């Protein structure tokens, strides 16, 4: 009973929706307002600071565009992993999750390259509130990428042994959210000048 005790609560499903899926959507709802607050503040500031378009022109659109493609591709791998998990093919789901993690790693490498070039050109966190927003928003997003990589590693290790395959879907949902946040960050900080 003790450690192996599984409460009935964890298996009930009065709504018919798996509990894990429900919980992930609630997590994302609370995440949306976090990024929402930050980005709404940024947009309000942007409207009052016309000089920010000059600052924004120093962000590397090519790197940001490349990273957008990388993230979208990694999201595709997450979908394929979910498909494999639905078919019950755990090892394949795990391989596809590793591909997703690879995409996340490339994303972070490009981000590191961007940050280091920008900082070496004097565009530091303190140069202007634009840059404070830029580093805070992309940094917060980067933290989410790292968390996703850790979780995917754990879930892939399980999936390889055909355990907890339903979690492949859950981490996929999270990963699409991370992707979607970037879809907002990219135009706001790179394209809109």
């Amino acid at each position, binding site marked *: *009973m003790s450690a192996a005790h599984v409460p009935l*609560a964890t298996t009930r499903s009065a709504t018919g*929706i798996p509990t894990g899926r429900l919980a992930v959507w609630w997590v994302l709802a609370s995440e949306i307002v*976090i990024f929402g*607050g*930050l980005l709404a503040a940024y947009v309000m500031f942007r409207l009052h600071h016309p000089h920010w378009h000059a600052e924004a022109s120093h962000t590397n659109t090519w790197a940001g565009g490349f990273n957008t493609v990388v993230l979208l591709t990694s999201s595709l791998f997450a979908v394929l992993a979910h498909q494999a998990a639905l078919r019950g093919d755990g090892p394949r789901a795990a391989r596809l999750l590793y591909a997703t993690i690879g995409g996340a790693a490339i994303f972070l490498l490009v981000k590191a390259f961007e940050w280091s070039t920008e900082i070496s050109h004097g565009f530091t966190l*303190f140069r202007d*509130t634009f840059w404070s927003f830029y580093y805070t928003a992309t940094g917060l997003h980067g933290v989410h990428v790292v968390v996703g990589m850790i979780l995917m590693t754990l879930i892939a290790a399980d999936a390889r042994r055909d355990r907890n395959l339903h979690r492949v879907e859950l981490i996929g949902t999270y990963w699409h959210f991370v992707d979607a946040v970037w879809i907002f960050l990219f135009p706001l900080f790179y394209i809109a000048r």
Partner: protein
Amino acid sequence: MSHDTAAHAAAHGSVWRRWVFSTDHKVIGCQYLFTGMAMAVIGGLMSYVFRMQLAWPDAPVPGYGVVSPGEYNALVTNHGSIMIFWVAMPVLIAALGNFLIPLMIGCDDMVFPRLNRLSYQIFLLSALVLLGSLAVPGGGFGGAWTSYPPLSAKGAYNLTPYGAPLWLVAVALEFVAFLLGGINFVTTVMNARAPGMKASYIPMVVWMIIIASILFMASVGPLVAGAVMLLFDQILGTRFFDPAGGGDPLLWQHLFWFFGHPEVYVVLLPAMGIVAEIITVFSRKKLFAYNTVLLTAAGTGVLSFLVWAHHQFVAGIDPRMAHLFTVTTLLISIPIAEMTFVFIATLYGGSITFPTPMLFALAFIAEFLIGGVTGIFLGSSGTDIYLHDTYFVLAHFHYTFFPIAIIATFAALYFWFPKMFGRMMNDTLGKIHFWGTVIPFNFIFIPLFITGMGGDHRRIYSYENFPMQMTPFLQELRIVATVSLVILLLFQVVFLFNFFWSLFRGPKAPANPWRANTLEWTAPSPPPHGNFATMPSVYRGPYEYSVPGRADDYWPQHVAN
């Protein structure tokens, strides 16, 4: 039933596993309760120290000594933070939510028991960080619980280079704990309900905790973002909120109050739910207009997002916006008044009895009414401009928060104590505690309404520098408030004695001492790990009291007919 308890106790082994690292929702609920009670003692004693300073400026406070201005600021800041974030939320929402939700919806635990334990551990860490922030060099943060920048953003201004960031980290950790807990609550109620438990059969207090949790999740995000930005301002030197560097201090006020005002309803709604449960039981009547209460609670939730800027009427807001926010702010009194009328309509014609929980529930309605009515003055931009940041505001929000966080919580504790700990509390001591709490409470804050209208500004360490505020009349009112506070605090000793004495020595409680309908009373007192011997099915709503044609005046939800 008893074999169950023994088997669980044996299987659970060590004290550590059963009490410290348990995943049982009831144990976690009690952990939240005891942590919240300990924090309430600390927060209450803080108010004693600064009230003594206000009544007898610069005289040594018995048991503390002379209060310096910096200490005064740290005391009021942390009193506010503790009472809202480390007392009201953990006790009303986390402790009661954890204890009641699985029992009231007929299940054995939360859907994520380990996440639940993690949520408490993060909460405990946040409390320790907060207490630690009082002991670092420079002292605790003294920039008020609203933490307005630029004062809060620069160590050079607030002179608490470590206290301010630690305070912010503590608040952020606390938010993380409650986000995890809230997600658990909502998914539990959505998915883990007993067979037959339709949405309209869910007890009102569970609904209220769920609506509050969703409100919290939807409102806290911008402040989390704001907290990150403020922390960067404090420790990295960014200037999000510093106009000298292109930032804007008003941005913080928007991010803060977009959360801060819904927060009032986050704690109010569970209190309303508690009162709904208690008055139906002790008036033996059905809750008047269940669906309407639910709808207005949801409406309150929606409206609460549209009122935040009434905190900024004096911060340089566009008068047209002030107008708009006046209207939305006053609108929110409609659903709240509606709930109050529902309570009165429920009482009307009932067979009312007055045990301690009922007294506290009724006092909640009466006292909260004063809080609501005085809020009208502050929600209207015209009067708010005069009253802003005076003791009138302070008295107003204590008339809302004290009934919510203290009176409703006492009602809940006296009501559910038999279920929580399997013993009855002493009713006579309970009544002494009731009168010793409610009467002094009014003698603290009615004088402060008057000093507020007399121009007493909040957050002033000593009025001696303001001769106009040192008239004998105003000073006597301050002394009345302070003496009443001391009396109120002394009467809490009665409660603590009653609570802990009953915990070990109180008479054994039957499973359903109040003859109530909801599912938690079908479990043994206290419920063993796993709660129910057989998982209940639900046949009707929670408030079927005094149904004509039945021998008993109650009709439990799990009894087939």
